[in-house]
């Protein structure tokens, strides 16, 4: 995991001091509301329905147990003893007092954390694959490049007032778990066809929101040393030419679409010619240095020769453990280890919400069983990436005691859900109560297992924080004359087979959402061919039979 240098620490400390000064001036009345707004937004601070909401950056989702304990502490000391995991792998707090925020930031700085650029029209937290470094299908660990991008983009003087927010994701494997095709810039590590050297494929202009677009390839292969100069060229063209007259047309996807990808590429390449051999060139030595922070753990240390047999015994002895093992753990590139997904989707809780006790609990479990590290996933769960097999049973028991062992990962109730009307001032409709309705309707785990892998994603408005366009089932809250209605899409995906879902028909009333989903699933069960997932069935059959079933 990356460790701050004295310079990194200094920058974060000075950022705290700067924000303290700005907040004090605002509270004293010498800084106007209008002037303060962009300044607080640059620091992840929104004014929401109830109180300010602070979004804390978790760079590419990676956390140490010490950091997790600090988040627990913050929720206890300044908030209502819980926090919320976001789809950008961050954590946000909903009930802070503005006057406390500088102190919160100072506390965060003691564990190398901050909230820089978690909102505002700037380059946001770079997101990545939650299995980075442990996935078998990975070409290379993407996190060193994420960290380079984090540093390059932090307080970037030229790109702090872009036309709109800007999101970058990096994936190290062909199976895209970082949703790179729906980001402003998507970066995929690829091998050069002839030289076999690893470099980057760069996509641009993807995104969700009001106008969902799949990203287009701007560079098939970029040698590693040019990563930052190429990003700088894209950002400069966007900063100068992106629309600023209409915030709904200000994302880079609109610029790329209006110029056409050929012309946009030409402009970027021309700009890049001036930058490529300049100071942004990344030397091999710096890549090596950065990679040292993300080395594999000493896996031999915990390997236990008897692990396979002791695991087998436990699986045999406890059906509940066996179900959790099957559903919430997956293969690790090192035999004898498993990747564990901690479901933060207990049926009675809002998806992604964690109490302070759960945060502390997970920190302790990570210390005990997974090298003191964890990852936040964009699906609003946590991952303990490096658990020795013979520790799985003890880990499971620990998770059970914190109500974090719901064996529903990858199933219908493992939903992505934005905060919606309960917290968000932009919302058209609620999403948390819909999640609850779905949980109530589908409380039979065996049925969920029979349905198999399905990704439900829900947003409370067009801003699409819940990524509804790319849900196998997407749910979008809409406002109809002051009433909450829900538009349902099917067939979306954020992975390597990225696609935008298709609307099945007119939106449905609030009380009918779970029932509508039930109809979609029954239709799937009736029509599926052997081994076919919901998404595959939708792709084969089209929307028609599902539409027919729902609307008759």
């Amino acid at each position, binding site marked *: 995991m990356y460790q701050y240098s004295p*310079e990194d620490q*200094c*920058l974060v400390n*000075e*950022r705290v*001091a*700067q924000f303290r*000064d*700005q907040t004090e001036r605002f509270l004293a009345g010498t*800084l106007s509301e209008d*002037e303060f707004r*962009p*300044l607080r937004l640059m620091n992840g601070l929104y004014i929401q329905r109830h109180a300010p909401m602070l979004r804390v950056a978790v760079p590419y989702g990676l956390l140490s147990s010490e950091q997790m304990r600090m988040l627990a502490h913050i929720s206890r000391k300044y908030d209502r003893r819980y926090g919320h995991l976001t789809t950008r792998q961050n954590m946000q707090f909903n009930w802070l007092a503005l006057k406390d925020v500088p102190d919160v930031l100072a506390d965060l700085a003691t564990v190398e954390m901050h909230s820089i650029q978690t909102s505002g*029209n700037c380059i946001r937290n770079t997101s990545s694959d939650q299995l980075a470094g442990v996935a078998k299908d990975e070409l290379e660990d993407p996190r060193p490049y994420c960290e380079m991008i984090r*540093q*390059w983009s*932090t*307080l*970037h*003087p*030229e*790109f*702090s*007032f*872009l*036309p709109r927010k800007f999101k970058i994701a990096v994936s190290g494997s062909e199976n895209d778990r970082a949703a790179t095709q729906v980001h402003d810039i998507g970066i995929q590590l690829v091998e050069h066809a002839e030289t076999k050297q690893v470099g980057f494929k760069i996509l641009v202009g993807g995104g969700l929101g009001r106008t969902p677009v799949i990203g287009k390839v701007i560079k098939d292969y970029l040698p590693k040393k040019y990563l930052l100069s190429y990003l700088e060229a894209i950002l*400069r063209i966007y*900063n*100068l030419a992106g629309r*600023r007259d209409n915030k709904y047309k200000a994302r880079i996807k609109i610029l790329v679409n209006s110029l056409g990808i050929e012309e946009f590429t030409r402009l970027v390449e021309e700009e890049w010619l*001036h930058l490529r051999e300049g100071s942004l060139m990344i030397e091999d030595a710096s890549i090596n240095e950065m990679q040292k922070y993300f080395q594999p753990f000493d896996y031999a240390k915990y390997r236990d020769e008897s692990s396979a047999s002791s695991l087998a015994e436990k699986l045999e002895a406890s059906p509940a453990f066996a179900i959790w093992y099957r559903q919430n753990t997956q293969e690790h590139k090192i035999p004898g280890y498993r990747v564990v997904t901690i479901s933060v989707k207990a049926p009675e809780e809002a998806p992604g919400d964690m109490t302070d006790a759960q945060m502390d609990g997970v920190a302790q479990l990570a210390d005990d069983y997974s090298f003191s590290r964890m990852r936040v996933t964009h699906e609003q769960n946590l991952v303990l990436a490096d658990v020795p097999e013979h520790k799985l049973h003890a880990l499971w028991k620990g998770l059970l005691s914190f109500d974090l062992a719901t064996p529903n990962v990858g199933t219908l109730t493992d939903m992505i859900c934005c905060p919606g009307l309960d917290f968000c001032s932009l919302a058209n409709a609620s999403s948390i109560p819909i999640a609850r309705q779905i949980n109530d309707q589908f409380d039979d785990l065996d049925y969920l297992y029979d349905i198999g892998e399905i990704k439900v994603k829900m947003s409370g408005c067009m801003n699409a924080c819940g990524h509804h366009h790319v849900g196998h089932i997407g749910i979008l809250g809409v406002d109809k004359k002051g009433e909450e209605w829900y538009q349902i899409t099917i067939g979306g995906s954020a992975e390597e087979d990225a696609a935008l879902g298709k609307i099945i028909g007119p939106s449905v009333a609030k009380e009918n959402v779970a029932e509508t989903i039930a109809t979609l699933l029954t239709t799937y069960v009736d029509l599926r061919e052997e081994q076919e997932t919901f998404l595959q069935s939708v792709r084969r059959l089209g929307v028609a039979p599902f539409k027919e079933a729902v609307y008759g």
Partner: protein
Amino acid sequence: MGKTIIKDDRLVEDSWLLDLAAEGADTAGESATKNRVVSLEQWQQNRERLLASSGPRGVAISNDDDVLELADDVAHLDLICVEFPAAGDGRGYSQAKLLRDRLGFKNEIRAIGEVLTDQLFLMRRSGINAFDLQADQDPEASLARLRPFSVSYQ
């Protein structure tokens, strides 16, 4: 008394007169003693005459202008004003950067328009070295906040 601006980390009295209206409309009063800044369009239309005149020359670019059009002119200019019509409009940062890095402009680049205390550090780091603050901003307080960071990544 002219107004006070921040230039090279100091408060100084402004010696320029921004004259973006029709060229030569007013030659009385202040304008007689001050150096004039003209718009890019005025500059391009009257280039030969302005180059022939003695005294300092200044051009103000708007954020729709392509600064690279000044490639052949930067050697003859003493001041380029970069306009920030709204504090949230960040085009001026890229324009300043291009003027410095691409065109090698060495003289004064001045931010004009909605120029606010808390953005000066970003402007300074993009190559802007003079700041004509929005009227309600406190020059002393702004000067004190010119360098909130002692380190940077870029």
